[in-house]
């Protein structure tokens, strides 16, 4: 941290999720913004729930997460100014090559979840109130299954971020529900391969919100707004689209 950055105070703190950080998006995205605006962006990467908690306490200027319900509550409770959609990617279901539940190649995520429960195949969940975890739970609900019945037996809650959960799944050869970005950047795959993708219900929307300066007077609202404006601008959206690992684009801009 350079002394000049401190003395000018020209930085914002963005509470974001581990999936955006670990996919490498920020490393690609932020330098472009910083060069253009001179504002340093400091990202604290946690799960969606934790990130919003941080923002609620006023420890961040901007929240950039993926969890529509949680985000809308955040704004409704008066902690965020407005929810703005930025980009999306999708979730995918990863599983061991041995595929005990026989779901590989499928395109119906709800059926896949039902088959996993029926086969009591090992499933590693994040279990950390993150956006990914929330999406996973929504799908169990759609499948009319309460995974808690298998808790400790075949349904394992890691209580951890996406990376560590993938590590765990890789080590014990379990099915795991993840966002595509983190999976593409993940290097420790072991015997895990892509099992199910493409279901419309796997859509994962990211939103950005300025922390409400009426609630926390110290929030850097001008710098924060500059960041938000840039992210949804044509340049910001193009930069997001340009981020690839190999040939795969990770995030798809959809700001209106």
């Amino acid at each position, binding site marked *: *941290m350079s002394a000049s950055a401190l003395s000018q105070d020209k930085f914002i703190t963005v509470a974001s999720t581990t999936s955006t950080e670990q996919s490498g998006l920020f490393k690609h995205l932020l330098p472009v913004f910083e060069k253009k605006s001179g504002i340093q962006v400091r990202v604290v*990467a946690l799960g969606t729930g934790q990130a919003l908690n941080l923002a609620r306490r*006023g420890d961040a200027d901007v929240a950039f997460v993926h969890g529509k319900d949680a985000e809308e509550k955040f704004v409704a409770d008066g902690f965020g100014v407005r929810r703005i959609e930025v980009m999306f990617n999708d979730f995918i279901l990863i599983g061991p090559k041995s595929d005990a539940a026989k779901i590989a190649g499928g395109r119906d995520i709800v059926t896949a979840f039902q088959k996993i429960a029926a086969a009591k195949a090992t499933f590693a969940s994040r279990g950390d109130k993150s956006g990914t975890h929330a999406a996973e739970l929504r799908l169990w609900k759609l499948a009319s299954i309460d995974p808690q019945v298998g808790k400790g037996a075949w349904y394992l809650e890691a209580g951890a971020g996406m*990376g560590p959960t993938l590590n765990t799944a890789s080590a014990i050869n379990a099915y795991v529900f993840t966002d595509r970005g983190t999976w593409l950047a993940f290097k420790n795959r072991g015997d895990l391969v892509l099992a199910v993708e493409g279901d419309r219900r796997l859509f994962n929307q990211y939103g950005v919100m300025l922390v409400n300066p009426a609630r926390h007077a110290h929030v850097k609202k001008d710098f924060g707004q500059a960041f938000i404006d840039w992210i949804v601008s044509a340049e910001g959206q193009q930069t997001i689209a340009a981020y690839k690992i190999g040939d795969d684009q990770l995030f798809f801009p959809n700001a209106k």
Partner: protein
Amino acid sequence: MNDISAALVEALRLISSADAQLAQIVWLSVRVSVSAVVIATVIALPLGALLAITRFPGRQTLIALLNALMGLPPVVVGLLIYLLLSRAGPLGEFGLLFTPTAMVIAQAVLITPIIAALSRQVIEDAWREYEEQLHSLGADTMACAQTLLWDTRFALIIVVLAGFGRAAAEVGAVMIVGGNIDGVTRVMTTAIALETSKGDLPLALGLGVLLVLLIIGANLLAHGVKLAAQRYQG
């Protein structure tokens, strides 16, 4: 074994590549831990000395408490300091959260009990030998504390080193109060945690080897100082 050799290769590659970002992370780690050790030492050594040579009711309880605090879980310290420094907390107005300063505070809180408890033991052992002579010469409590601190300096170097090792190896507290922000509060331990969670194990291990080398280096340096000083001062 394959992972370990891959890690050693990675570590060598990291060092020889003289990567600017890596250098920044290493430098921040050193700065934070050394600052924490200096602050902790300034508080803990006099505390340990006074605790060793004074007698007062409740002293044994205080010593037991201090010894117990050596085992303070870092993640608990991190959480407490986070609550203190958070904007919603009592010290929020200083805006210290997610800065290297917060990490220095967390590490200093962690290692002060260690340095105090260990120095207390070292000095109390020496006090048994020195007490009568120093009293005979008319030294008051302050003079005794100063004299003992200086005379046990070689053992105290090791105590301070123990504190440094603990600080440099710490990840739980600095992760919470620092936020592992790229370029700002990312230190070696949190970088290792991040790379591990990204599944890049060779890189994580390589960084780990580097960290261990750093700590070994610090120890060798201190030992060298100790040996040289002993040769000249007995």
